[in-house]
């Protein structure tokens, strides 16, 4: 009899252990080395670098586009592929910036630098979509970046719609920068100065328009 009590006691005790163990599972599965919360400035640094930092093993990547347009010629080691119009492939990889932009706006909400971050968001979107569409033509634009809600196969917009959208966003960006204050997380020499960013936005809008004008 004593033995049976001991056995049932042991089983109950182990069951207790299990239930206690289960409630700790969420703690165990939390990685203290990783974070699910960041700040707007860190995301801003990422977004700006994604658009502006040249991505190459050496500085030749910086010259590449100009060789394509035949503004420069390059002759050292091996030839530069773009001189011979070998442009390779391009994809939609830049669009992974979009969830970062949304997240940055969420963290910027209510802060004093909100307008600057909104301006940065619009400008970054414009730069990225312009760069993608000028190489690929018709691309997803209005429905892009909404993967988290389940939109995994995105419909395309025409290049005209994309460029119109880009120009509109640049206008909005310019508006936001005009009302913004100095923001954190800017890796460029502008150091977060919204006035300089506003000028940059206008300069970029001009560049977009130039590339769209009809050849005479």
């Amino acid at each position, binding site marked *: 009899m004593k033995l049976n009590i001991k056995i049932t006691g042991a089983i109950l005790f182990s069951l207790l252990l299990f239930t206690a163990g289960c409630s700790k599972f969420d703690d165990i599965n939390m990685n*203290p080395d990783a974070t699910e919360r960041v700040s707007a400035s860190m995301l801003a640094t990422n977004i700006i670098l994604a658009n502006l930092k040249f991505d190459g093993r050496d500085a030749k990547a910086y010259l590449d586009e100009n060789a394509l347009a035949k503004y420069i010629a390059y002759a050292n080691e091996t030839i530069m592929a773009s001189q011979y119009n070998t442009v390779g492939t391009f994809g939609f990889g830049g669009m992974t910036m979009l969830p970062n932009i949304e997240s940055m706006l969420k963290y910027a909400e209510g802060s004093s630098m909100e307008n600057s971050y909104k301006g940065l968001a619009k400008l970054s979107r414009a730069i990225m979509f312009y760069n993608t569409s000028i190489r690929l033509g018709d691309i997803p634009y209005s429905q892009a970046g909404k993967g988290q809600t389940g939109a995994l196969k995105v419909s395309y917009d025409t290049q005209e719609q994309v460029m119109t959208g880009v120009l509109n966003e640049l206008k909005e960006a310019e508006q936001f920068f005009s009302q913004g204050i100095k923001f954190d997380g800017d890796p460029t020499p502008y150091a977060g100065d919204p006035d300089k960013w506003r000028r940059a936005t206008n300069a970029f809008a001009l560049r977009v328009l130039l590339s769209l004008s009809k050849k005479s």
Partner: protein
Amino acid sequence: MKLARLLFLFLILSVSGYAQTKIISGRVTDDKGIGLQGVSVKALNSGAGTTTAGDGSYSIRAGEAESLEFSYVGFSSQTTTVGVRNIIDITLMPASTQNLEGVVVTALGIKRQEKALGYATQEVKGNTLQTVKGIDVTTSLTGKVAGMTIKNSAEFMEEPNITIRGEKPLIVIDGVPYGNMTLRDVPSDDIESINFLKGATASALYGERGGSGAIMITTRKGALGKGFTISLNSSSMFEAGYLAIPEMQSKYGRVVNTATNTYVRSADGSWGPPLEGQQIIQWDPTSKTMKSMPYLPIGKDNFKNFQEQGYVINNNLSIAQTGDLGGFRASATWVQNKGTYPNSMFNKLTYSVGGDIKLKKFSISTSVSYNNHSSPNTGFGGYAGYDPMYSMLVWGSPDWDIRQYKDYWMIPNEVQNSSYTAGNNNPYFDRYQRIHPYKKDIFNGQLTLNYDILTWLKAMVRTGYDTYSNRQDIRISKGSFQGGGTGKVMGFGTEIWGESQKGSYNVGLRRGYSSSNEAMIIGNKKLNDFRIDGFVGGAIFYNQDEGIEARTNGGLSIPGYYSLKASVNPVNVMSLIYKKQTNSLFGKLGFGWRDILFLEATGRNDWASTLPKSTRSFFYPSVSGSFVVSELFRPDWLSFWKLRGAWTKYKTPANIYAINNVFSIVNNAWGTLATAVYPTLIRPDDIFAEGSTTTEFGSAMSFLKNRVSLDVTYYEKKMYDYIVSASISPSSGFTGVYTNSNEERTRKGIELALNVTPVRTQDIRWDVGFNWSKFATFYTRLDSLYSVQNRDWVKVGNRSDHYTINEYQTDNQGNIVFNNGVPTYKPILSHVGFADPDWIWGFNTQVAYKNLALNISLDGRVGGLAQSTTAMYMWRSGNHPNSLSEERYLDATNPGTKNFLGEGVKVVSGTIVYDANYHVVSDTRVFAPNDIKTTYKSYIEALHKGTAWGGSASSVDLFSTTFLKLREVSLTYTLPKNMAGKVGSKNMSVSLIGQNLIYWARQFKYSDIDGGTENFTDPAMRFIGLNLKFDF
């Protein structure tokens, strides 16, 4: 208090038993009627014992109720109750090499009758692994179990890779599924036996960690016979030649600058002029200046001269005692391995202690062991690690003699003495000044308590714990032309590329532990013809790993000062931590009818911390049965026949932290600014565990009084609900989604184990064993969204281990298309074969004649594909022995000319267009024979692609991995007892041993493909040596 009462009861019983004893005598013979000497006769209840004399006779005092057990090595034990008899004669039957009638250790350490098992198992006895002792016991297991593939890489200190039916099995030591132990941590001398439980079926009771089979190791816990034994088992093997070693051409040297008559000192291989003794300004290592010297192939044996004598020493000392209540054993093992490169040494120390105690209803068993591994330099492997082969065989040349470069400093700690000024380190400098020291401590222990509640009910509690601590350094001296390459100081750490020339110091500390606790109630009751057995239990398994690494940045401020304080720029640091816990409840119910029909069912429910709350709990059952046909139908020639079948389901949860949606943080991404990157993988919160269902059928038969035994198994394992990171279009803002795919794959296989004893007489015994298995994985269902699409080879019914490369572009007759004189490649991938072998086999035989025994084992794999990285780069650098063509000579002696004409066609007009499915849409090409000459070098560089940084191999560098090895041979002489007695030992034997003796491969001639891949693998050594065993 209870214990005292039990002991008192025990004393009374034994005394009363003693009062009614009588003298029992008799004779023990074998199946031929010959008396057996040394048979152990044990009275199980009183504990008394004796051994038989020379003619097999014995006498012992025992009561009528006493059970006498007769046991002798190599024969099946027998137990009988005394009853009214005074004379008991026993005939012992030899045990077959396949343990058919005996007892087998299965999941959770529960011993089962082998005939009752419905699933495939195979056993290897520890004493077969204790003569030829290499670095790891794993190597000696190659080919001994059907369905188990062991890949033994020749790379220094690399652990052999074990897979059972294509998957990595769980290692269980004394019933505990440790999280951090491998077979490298168990010395072969401590092993009593290893039982291999194949497939998910046999391990359904270990949960998700046991779904790929389990290797159940039982360690020795006492002496072999009663009493006290000290054993010494010493084995030393020395390298006696190489099985495969790359060779280099010796006709051409490196490029010479004709204007200055100086050879170039950048590491570009051997595309220069022939080494015909002409005066050229070269680096003189003795005077350490540039001097005009004859240009000769003085370095043609550089690689061979660089190798040093390797050896493996494996010594074990153990003390064991077996008494009435139980046994105890302490053992110490020391293994030392000297690799073939300078400064490569590996030391492994193991100290283990184990014992068990049986006291009536209560029994305890425990084992504890400590392992220490250390090496002053584990080296850097592969092309991207800049293995020494890189600077000698590939981008070096035969115009410098390595024997003159042993003094490797120009300026100590700052500038090396090398015939190159970039790319190729002086190989001695590389081995002594660019090092990767390694130290690891592992401790593991377990305690098992059994208590007999009733005669048919038992309670068991087991707790196991292991912990490891691993420290790795990488030190690179200033002046090294290569950094750390792909080397890391920590598992999941960062690759130490580093800046060459500036030096660096990196250190990584990693440690972890796992704890496994189980409690079970086990019942076993016989009711008339039926036997019911079962158990219910629970387990908690927790494991945690953590690590910190720190790396200097920007070089060392003071040459030779290897410390984090010497870092020029701020030190880079990283830390990581992983935790996981699984709680389980499980149970089993089994029925047996007489000894003919057995049926059992198991069920297990796991709660895993790595899945979201909604899918955290998952359940999986299994059913198995066996039918012993030979109980009903027993002709003379059939000794045993069992049919078995099993069906098992098991589930695997997601990897640790895989479901966590976290940002990636990069510190100092630009100046002092840090970036946060939103995860590019969508992680929905409804991921559930992956699943698989295995169905298995088998038959175990033995004929002619157990002289021939055959075990055949056929299995099918369906795997589904794969958790995949499926690629999606980045236009969604993400590059992947973490989800359960609808794809299903099935692995089908056959295993065969055949054991034959052709000769068995009093003096001679000859056993032969053969293992063969074949398996392949096929697609059985594809997911319309997430499976690979638009590829012809991904189709239901095709094998999933397809090997694809870019083939050479050809015309419709198969001639290679050249462009500007060099071959071109198709822009699409083509399917050229299968990566996994077609079948694997193992063969072993033992011949015993009086005091001599000869053991031979062979094994091999047939089929499979792998690329040869060493060969492809030797071609590209001009050093391959087959690259001495006429055209090359003309190119080299007439600089500026192009003398090679490729045999093939060129495109005159038109193009070929492919669609997204890799099919030809249109082909308007017009061909003409190739008439454009090019240099031999350009042709070779185009023909052999270099894939160290990615890409698929050229078809000329893709080889079949078929090979066979004479794995082990041992010739043992057991000294007669009187001679051994002179040294004071009970048993003494001397063996001539060899490991890795003969290697034959269909295509991989210059490197050993046993490891499965070839990326600058160290030359494979052949070992021959001596083994001495003493038992005192």
